[in-house]
């Protein structure tokens, strides 16, 4: 993975240079946007609702037992918006969308479609990488914002329904409002923006360096997902260190 970091940086830079051409590629951006956003919405909804619920279930009874019931909303809200929603949703999207990107571009590479683009003086970066990077960089932060809200709702539902916690909705959200500030949500959304860039660059790069036949495509898909997840976790640590200051 790390031997290709230089190539990935070059690919990212080339894509940034192509950004002024985004309007030209708007139809492809919308297609990708639909694929990433709309098609992942239900999955994001279910995942984040239950993550919120689990956090409330794990921390709620402990806090209530120690007389800290008024902190349940804050703990759930803070952990979801700063850590769980951005990381879990990014891992979900790396699996769903990163794999699709690597498979599609990888198969185009294997079946000479990318060489055909080059012979027509159509740079693959502009035609293939740019729309995907722009679409995921917009849609993942939106999905994470949505996931944060649904995660809070999941935490609130469990806190109300579980007899060991026994909070009311107003009490849960009052605690959440006391602990979570807008900048905390922005912090999580910003992280997801960086993770989106990681997923797009790693997956597209993996697709572009695919060699061999169907086995090569399969290998690229696996590498794209695994490398994206590893880099997301590493970036998460580094970003948390930077953003905590």
């Amino acid at each position: 993975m790390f031997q290709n970091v230089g190539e990935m940086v070059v690919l990212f830079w080339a894509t940034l240079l192509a950004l002024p051409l985004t309007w030209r590629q708007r139809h492809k951006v919308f297609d990708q946007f639909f694929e990433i956003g709309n098609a992942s919405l239900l999955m994001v909804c279910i995942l984040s609702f239950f993550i919120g619920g689990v956090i409330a279930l794990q921390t709620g009874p402990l806090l209530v037992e120690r007389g800290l019931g008024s902190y349940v909303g804050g703990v759930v809200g803070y952990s979801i918006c700063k850590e769980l929603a951005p990381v879990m949703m990014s891992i979900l999207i790396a699996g769903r969308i990163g794999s699709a990107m690597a498979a599609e571009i990888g198969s185009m590479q294997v079946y000479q479609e990318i060489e055909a683009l080059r012979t027509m003086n159509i740079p693959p970066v502009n035609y293939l990488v740019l729309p995907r990077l722009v679409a995921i960089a917009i849609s993942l932060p939106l999905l994470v914002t949505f996931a944060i809200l649904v995660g809070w709702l999941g935490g609130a539902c469990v806190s109300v329904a579980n007899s060991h916690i026994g909070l009311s909705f107003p009490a849960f959200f009052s605690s959440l409002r006391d602990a979570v500030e807008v900048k905390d949500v922005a912090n999580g959304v910003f992280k997801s923006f960086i993770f989106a860039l990681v997923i797009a660059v790693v997956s597209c790069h993996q697709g572009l360096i695919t060699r061999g036949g169907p086995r090569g495509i399969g290998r690229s898909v696996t590498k794209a997902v695994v490398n994206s997840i590893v880099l997301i976790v590493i970036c998460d640590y580094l970003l948390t260190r930077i953003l905590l200051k």
Partner: protein
Amino acid sequence: MSDTPNNSRGVSVQVRGLHKSYDGQEVLLGLDFDVHPGEIFVIMGPSGSGKTVLLKHLIGLETPDAGQILIGGQPVQSPELMDQYRMAMVFQSGALLNSLTVGENVGLYLSEHRLKPPDEIARIVSEKLEVVGLKGNEDKMPSDLSGGMKKRVAIARALVIEPQLILYDEPTSELDPLSALVIAEEIVNLKERIQVTSLIVSHDRDLAFGVADRIAVINQGRILTIGAPDEVRRNEDPLVKKFLHADFKRL
């Protein structure tokens, strides 16, 4: 013999001392030849002799280990070359974009470079598909086509560029004799109509001797002979004779 840039006629190709190896295995061993503007130049040779690798070098998809390729007098790796000269390649597999329709594939160059409005592109696409006998197939997906039809769509896609240099990788493989004849006629028509330089890699002796102005025979990365079809036919090199006269009757 470098050409000044001219958008209405074919360009020259000069190959000098071209070497290429992959993982220590030498594929091209110092090729030298010229292709004149507007000429149909056919490169023949057995499978694995380096023909397709040579084509990829000529369009800049591969970088040589040593040697030089000049298109219209300019190095093929020069970034301005693609803006200055229109070049197209017809891949052996067709290399159509499978996620696009036939019409979108054929019009891709024009739409991506914004050279024509959409209705004009649709007209040109229809016209080029008619040339290759596939009019009315604009909305089909490449997966709906046979191998031969894909090849013809790839040729239509190349024609849309109105190229000054067109490279064909086995243009008649997978085609029935009648379709092969249509393609051969189109190659000759293109030369007469827009003076395009055509470089063809093929095993097809009928195609080579039917359309070529000159033929090169290549074997194991070396050129065995270059000349007009009659000269090549009379060549006494045993490898050339063996390749040109291979016949099932001998079985």
